[in-house]
């Protein structure tokens, strides 16, 4: 008896174990490089503008081992015109396959080796560039140049090891603009960008674990400082299967938080498909015994009131009917939330027969919502169908409807087998839809344009020497220092981690203060239009040294950094040194006597009528004083003196602490 699914939030790890849930990840992540991977086009420039269009068609070829790949055959059936939009600044003749590849970008390879070491992979000693066939047109050559750097690594998770099957280095594909009928349009700006692709073993036991592991991989990648961040720079493919099901790939999930719901949906879909398979068996239907019939029925439904069909007939399109013997009732079976089994058929018809205008089919299980009962009766008589049979109508031109009928039958036969191996697209509502047949290893070819590339051991050792600390070790260390979770996460991915260590380890700076300055303050500088990269780590250390030696108050640290940046950003011609700013701020901390004199003067100047409460007065005074004394007096000490001078209530000023 197949498992009937509970709602998402009620599923337990035991439930997932019970259905034999397995899940693995492939994470595609762009690298920060100067050029694209195999040509010298600039990396990371995106624009929807284009200067030219190029039309191509794809033909499947034989793999190295002599077989046509299943995906290849599917794409051949779809017969698409592929239009590439080409922008002068982002694409050269390499990307659209009119020039052979140049040698692989060294900075990309170095970054990939670094990540391979962090993933503890068995490194290969010679790279062979492979061509991975993509006939959907997303790459104009018809294949992606790709290579792997190592196999069999692992990362720690919940006290277990999550296996890392391999790490790939490959070129990114085009961005799809539209796909209507037989015309598919792509933007080529992203094409050829270097991507790393860590692939895990199917070691995740629940949908949430998939998301957790995706997070770990994200952090590990980012800890190198060599991956791009932001929209479109990372895409997760999630592989899901249940016992008795098949490996199905959910393609290109952009955000990690979407993963659990998508994975749940797919597991549920597979269980539902297995239930349908069992039900078909119960009805005596197997892949071999499946009976079907297809015919043109345009004239029979010519007078229908069902609007999409009427419109199609009005445009001179044909209507065809497929009878699936014994399928009655099953097409409404729910396979995902708010998604019926019929969508499996509609998706195939859309993708493979190119009937992209929706709705692209109706079926007899939804009789009341589409055609009138008498239309179905006429169709049933014409097609010799009985009450146990399901009827599916499709419409379009002669060739496409023919393909559509064949696809419906193919999908029905797969239903009698179980779960087909699909690549599926992630939809916004957490469900997924058919994208293409899952390609096998058959689509790999050696690239004859590039020779194998040996990776000398000294190159690996050079990279190993400057590897960042494992991000999970780093995080544990920060947590032990007492940093908040948020701070731990920000800091461990910050490009200034080395600076943080120097401040804490060499100068003995309070970790929270060091973290606030190196992460949050730097971010705040950027938000206010300053470029924090104009400050070198050594300079920041110099400022902290002044603080550590008592030459600068805590508040002064940020003030000096900000003033240096302001000068550098706004007056780029002026060569300003941190030491100059320190001096100009007259940054020597005030003695208690000096501070008391300042406080007293401020209190004397205070116009009592303006403030009704002590707290307001206190707040006002603090504002005035901290502005005057910034960098030279500790905020907490000033607050205390103000409170004392105003008469008690010293606790009012505590909030100033930590405002660094």
């Amino acid at each position, binding site marked *: 008896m197949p498992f009937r699914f509970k709602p998402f939030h009620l599923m337990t790890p035991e439930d997932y174990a019970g259905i034999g849930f397995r899940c693995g990840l492939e994470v595609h992540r762009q690298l920060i490089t100067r050029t694209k991977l195999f040509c010298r086009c600039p990396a990371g420039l995106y624009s929807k503008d284009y200067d030219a269009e190029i039309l191509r068609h794809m033909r499947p*070829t034989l793999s190295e081992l002599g077989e046509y790949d299943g995906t290849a055959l599917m794409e051949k059936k779809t017969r698409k015109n592929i239009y590439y939009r080409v922008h002068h600044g982002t694409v050269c003749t390499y990307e659209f396959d009119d020039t052979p590849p140049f040698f692989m970008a060294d900075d990309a390879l170095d970054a990939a080796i670094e990540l391979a070491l962090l993933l503890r992979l068995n490194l290969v000693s010679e790279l062979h560039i492979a061509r991975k066939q993509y006939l959907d047109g997303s790459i104009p050559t018809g294949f992606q140049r790709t290579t792997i750097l190592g196999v069999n690594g692992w990362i720690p998770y919940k006290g277990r090891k999550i296996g890392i099957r391999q790490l790939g280095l490959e070129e990114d594909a085009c961005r799809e603009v539209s796909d209507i009928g037989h015309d598919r349009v792509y933007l080529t700006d992203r094409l050829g960008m270097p991507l790393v692709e860590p692939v895990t073993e199917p070691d995740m036991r629940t949908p949430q674990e998939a998301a957790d592991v995706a997070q770990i991989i994200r952090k590990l990648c980012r800890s190198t400082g060599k991956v791009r961040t932001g929209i479109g720079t990372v895409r997760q493919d999630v592989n899901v299967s249940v016992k008795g099901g098949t490996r199905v790939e959910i393609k290109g999930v952009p955000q990690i938080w979407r993963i659990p719901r998508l994975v749940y949906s797919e597991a549920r879909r597979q269980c539902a498909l297995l239930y349908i398979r069992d039900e078909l068996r119960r009805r005596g239907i197997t892949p071999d015994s499946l009976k079907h019939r297809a015919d043109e029925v345009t004239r029979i439904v010519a007078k229908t009131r069902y609007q999409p069909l009427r419109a199609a007939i009005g445009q001179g399109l044909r209507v065809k009917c497929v009878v699936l013997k014994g399928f009655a009732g099953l097409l409404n079976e729910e396979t995902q939330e708010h998604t019926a089994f019929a969508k499996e058929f509609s998706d195939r018809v859309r993708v493979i027969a190119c009937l992209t205008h929706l709705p692209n089919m109706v079926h007899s299980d939804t009789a009341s919502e589409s055609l009138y009962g008498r239309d179905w009766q006429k169709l049933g008589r014409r097609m010799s169908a009985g009450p146990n049979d399901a009827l599916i109508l499709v419409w379009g031109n002669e060739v496409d409807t023919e393909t559509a009928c064949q696809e419906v039958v193919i999908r029905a036969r797969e239903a009698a087998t179980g779960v087909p191996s699909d690549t599926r697209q992630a939809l916004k509502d957490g469900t997924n839809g058919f994208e293409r047949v899952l390609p096998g290893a058959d689509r790999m070819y050696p690239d004859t344009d590039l020779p194998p590339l040996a990776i000398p051991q000294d190159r690996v050792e050079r990279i190993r020497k400057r590897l960042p600390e494992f991000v999970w070790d780093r995080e544990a260390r920060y947590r032990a220092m007492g940093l908040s979770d948020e701070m731990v996460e920000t800091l461990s991915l910050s490009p200034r981690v080395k600076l943080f260590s120097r401040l804490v380890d060499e100068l003995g700076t309070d970790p929270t203060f060091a973290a606030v300055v190196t992460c949050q303050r730097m971010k705040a500088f950027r938000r206010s239009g300053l470029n924090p990269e104009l400050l070198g780590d050594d300079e920041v250390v110099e400022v902290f040294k002044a603080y550590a030696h008592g030459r600068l108050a805590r508040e002064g640290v940020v003030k000096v950094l900000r003033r240096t940046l302001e000068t550098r950003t706004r007056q780029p011609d002026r060569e300003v040194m941190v030491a100059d700013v320190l001096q100009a701020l007259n940054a020597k901390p005030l003695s208690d006597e000096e501070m008391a004199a300042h406080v007293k003067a401020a209190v004397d100047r205070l116009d009592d009528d303006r403030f009704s409460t002590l707290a307001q007065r206190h707040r006002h005074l603090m504002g005035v004083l901290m502005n005057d004394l910034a960098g030279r007096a500790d905020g907490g000490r000033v607050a205390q003196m103000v409170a004392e001078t105003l008469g008690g209530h010293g606790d009012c000023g505590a909030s100033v602490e930590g405002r660094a």
Partner: protein
Amino acid sequence: MSDKRFQGYRGAGKAVLERCGVGVWSEVDVESSSGRFTGLILPRSETSDDKHVVLKLENGYNVGIAADSISNITEHGRREAHYKIPEKEFPSDPAKPHVTLFGTGGTIASRLDYRTGAVIPAFSPGELYGSVPELADLCNLRTEKLYGVFSENMGPQQYIRLAESIGEEIAKGVDGIVIGHGTDTMHHTSAILTFMVQDSPIPIVMVGSQRSSDRPSSDAAINLINAVKTAAEGDIAEVVVCMFGPTSDQYCLLHRGTRVRKMHSSYRSTFRTIGDIPLAMVDQEKITHLRDDYKRRRSDRSVKINTAFDEMVTILYYYPGMRPDVLDAIVDKGYRGVVIAGTGLGHVNKLVYPALKRAVEKGVHIYMTVQTLWGYVQMYVYETGREIMELGVVPASNMLPEVAYMKLCWALGQTDDRDEVRRIMLTPIADETTEREPYNGYLIYQGAIPEVQEFLRTIKR
């Protein structure tokens, strides 16, 4: 036998395979200092180093493992790859024309070779039908592999055999001939065939591909389909080149064999008619003629085959400051003909005049062409030109340098008589020289100019 077991492996790579008792096509676990790898041992390219063993992993990727890092390899099976294009019998239909496809090598219909990593031709009608089934809609196909050489290795023997084979095929009554050829020297072969095979009653169509047919974006299938269509149904009974036309997958162009030239090292649309317009456009639907002055298809079987060829001809590509001893050396080595690719309207510097004079006196036939490719030799405009002609150098009108080379080889294969050679050279057979250059015969659009950008911006849907 043992050689096959270690196919392509030498030195350290071969030694480790021998030591572990495994060979090519062994399914193995490799223990190395960087860990364990499981896969299938592949043959190694002979041009690669001898320090690595190549494995195909389960995931389809190939990787190299340094031989000196391998401690042990254990075999747990064997699996030999059988590369085979699905071969189906090419259907025969008496109502369809008969086309013969000659294979000479090159990348039209090909497969991968493990050892060299190169692409090698596969050519039987059954294989072709398996990969390009559209051909069966056009004709009954017979194929004959004349030789398998890369196009840069084509030479006189191949030209002669090809011309003779064409003659035999015409006599047998075929309706059209297609010649698969590597693209690098396709225009050389198309030129010499034009001279060797004259007044053919049927189309003789040369075709190749710029992207090998082992890739999905290959131009091989579209070029081949269009070439076969031209041979089977076309009306142009001449030697033509059928290759990719524009940048996009839209149509092929038919170029006259003597006016065509490969103009880009890698673009698909590399073949261009120089100094004139192409003969026709061809796609799967139709052949669209662009000009009317071509030789029509006939039903008779007569053809003139003349395979004369003298190899002692060379092309001298002039550059400023060229010294006369270059030409002296050519003459002293016994060359009988020299085609000069001169600057501008057909010039060389005064320094080589004595060498030209000496060469002509020694009986060498010297013809002037232009390295600008487009345009005519015109040696009357400047005094230098007139002086060069007085030395005995013959202007070759607007003949392309490679075509002039082929024609001079062919002419000197027939006669040594100065006037007769000159008559042959300057009497056009198929537009190798033309009387006029049309206004649209020279079109090299420059990018970024607004009207050109407008043209490039969108493709008609």
